[in-house]
């Protein structure tokens, strides 16, 4: 808070003071008061004004400049009232109390939304577990009475399972609660689990899975990684390029500071213009419109799961040739030492 701001703010007061001084002088002259006395009275008048302004300015300046500078530095601006001292002048107190009250009310409001979103998430999680029971039951029935139709039922049941998993992981990725465990996970086992889960679909497409260098362990949540690779797999099987044998290559490489897991297919690829938006929510792009029905959620969920787990993820593609997703797992020596 600068002094000029203060002066500008007090313009009305000065105007009134000047007016009252003028009136006073008028009367003093009318009663023929001596010149010395007039000068004396004027001096006292100015002295009072200056003293009053200086004290008022000092009291306010402390509060307002603190407010301004702390607000600029703060990233969560709604916490400002916690960081300024309670002022000692009336207007300041009024503002301070209003800030506190507004903030408290906002916190309550936010808490209510948090609660309702947590409730919703809990319900989704519970619902997904519930829906898996009839699906499991149907899958067993289809297997026990296996014939041509049983195989077809199983395929549809796998689709249902895939979609419910998407809902589950979407709910998990959107919420702040920590419900994952980061531990040493063998890439080989994870990839085998994903392949096993999608075996029928892979064989139906006549695709071929190649792996290389998967004898590594990474720090991640195994279940989340399985879901992520499952999404890549589903995409690869969806966007197969006609005229060549579909090949899915999963390979890992170890760098000094991290492990990279590559998931590459030789499908139709992603147009260059769409490539940097594939992880956006609800983005379907050219492929989503032209080839298969796409929700644009799969890769978005993948990206948010990776963000939560602290993995990097990149997409690379040449249209008509290949698509490659790469996940980067950080190596954490400190954590390993703690564990061993």
């Amino acid at each position, binding site marked *: 808070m600068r002094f000029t701001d203060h002066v500008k703010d007090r313009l009305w007061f000065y105007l009134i003071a000047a007016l009252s001084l003028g009136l006073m002088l008028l009367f003093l002259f009318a009663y023929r008061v001596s010149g010395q006395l007039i000068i004396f009275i004027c001096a006292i008048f100015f002295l009072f004004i200056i003293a009053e302004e200086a004290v008022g300015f000092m009291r306010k300046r402390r509060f307002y400049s603190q407010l301004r500078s702390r607000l600029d530095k703060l990233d969560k601006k709604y916490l400002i009232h916690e960081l300024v001292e309670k002022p000692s002048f009336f207007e300041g107190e009024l503002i301070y109390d209003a800030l506190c009250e507004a903030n408290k009310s906002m916190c309550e409001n936010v808490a209510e939304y948090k609660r309702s979103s947590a409730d919703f998430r809990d319900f989704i999680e519970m619902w*997904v*577990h*519930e829906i*898996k*029971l*009839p*699906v*499991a*039951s*149907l*899958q*067993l*029935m289809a*297997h*026990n009475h296996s014939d041509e139709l049983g195989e077809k039922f199983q395929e549809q*049941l796998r689709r249902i*399972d895939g979609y419910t*998993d998407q809902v*589950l992981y979407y709910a998990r990725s959107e919420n702040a609660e920590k*419900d*994952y*465990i980061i*531990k040493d996970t063998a890439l*080989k086992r994870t*990839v*085998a689990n994903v*392949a*096993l*889960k999608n*075996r029928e679909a*892979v*064989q139906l497409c*006549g695709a*071929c*899975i*190649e*792996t290389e260098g*998967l004898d590594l362990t990474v720090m991640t*949540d*195994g*279940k*989340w990684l399985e879901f992520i690779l499952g999404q890549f797999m589903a995409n690869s099987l969806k966007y197969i390029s006609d005229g060549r044998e579909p090949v899915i290559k999963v390979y890992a490489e170890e760098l000094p500071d991290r492990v990279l897991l590559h998931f590459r297919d030789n499908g139709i690829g992603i147009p260059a213009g769409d490539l940097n938006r594939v992880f956006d929510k609800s983005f379907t792009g050219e492929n989503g419109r032209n080839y298969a029905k796409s929700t644009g959620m799969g890769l978005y969920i993948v990206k948010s799961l990776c963000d939560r787990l602290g993995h990097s993820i990149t997409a690379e593609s040449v249209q008509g040739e290949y698509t490659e997703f790469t996940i980067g797992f950080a190596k954490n020596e400190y954590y390993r030492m703690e564990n061993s």
Partner: protein
Amino acid sequence: MNRIYIVEDDRSIREELAELLRNSGYETDCLTDFSDSAAQILAAKADLILMDINIPNLNGEQLLKEIRKKTDTPVIMVTSRTSETDEVLSMSYGADDYITKPYNPTILLLRISAVLKRSSGAASVQTYSGLQVNDAKGSLSDGSRELTLTKNEMIIFRFMLDRQGSIVTRDELMTALWDNDEFVNDNALTVNISRLRSKLAELGCEDAIETRKKQGYILR
């Protein structure tokens, strides 16, 4: 014959699961009254326990902990809870495997036989009509000659040998191969089986593997 005890509160799943296991040559027994689960499970003296986490009156993980105090019977947790936390918790309480619903029935059977094999401590050398089977070396020998099998052939042969005399479907063989990181396709499986056949014939076991149309294969 191995006896499997099923702890599952969903009636439909329980019945289908029992049927699946019976079809695959296991004896089954189910827990139907959940008021005193632990005692009943222990009294059943099964060779393997399939257990759900969400069962009435008691948490499956606590139940597992209680059972583990009294017996070493292998336990496979079968559940619709898919988080890594649940799995880690179950394994730390002494579960031998953890499978999430809905499961592929073939994979479930594969896991069950793997756990049973591990717990019975079957030796790796077995014989098949006078042939020595050496898993570690991946070879078959009749005393004088030794033939090396490829990894795929060994997986197929091992799987059939464990189920000697009963039908093994292509689906099961495929699952066993994929479970061992061998992502072969249909043609490759056919080729592997015919190679395995000719290798067995070379060692004097002609027609060891019989083809049953639309069903699978039998190792005689």
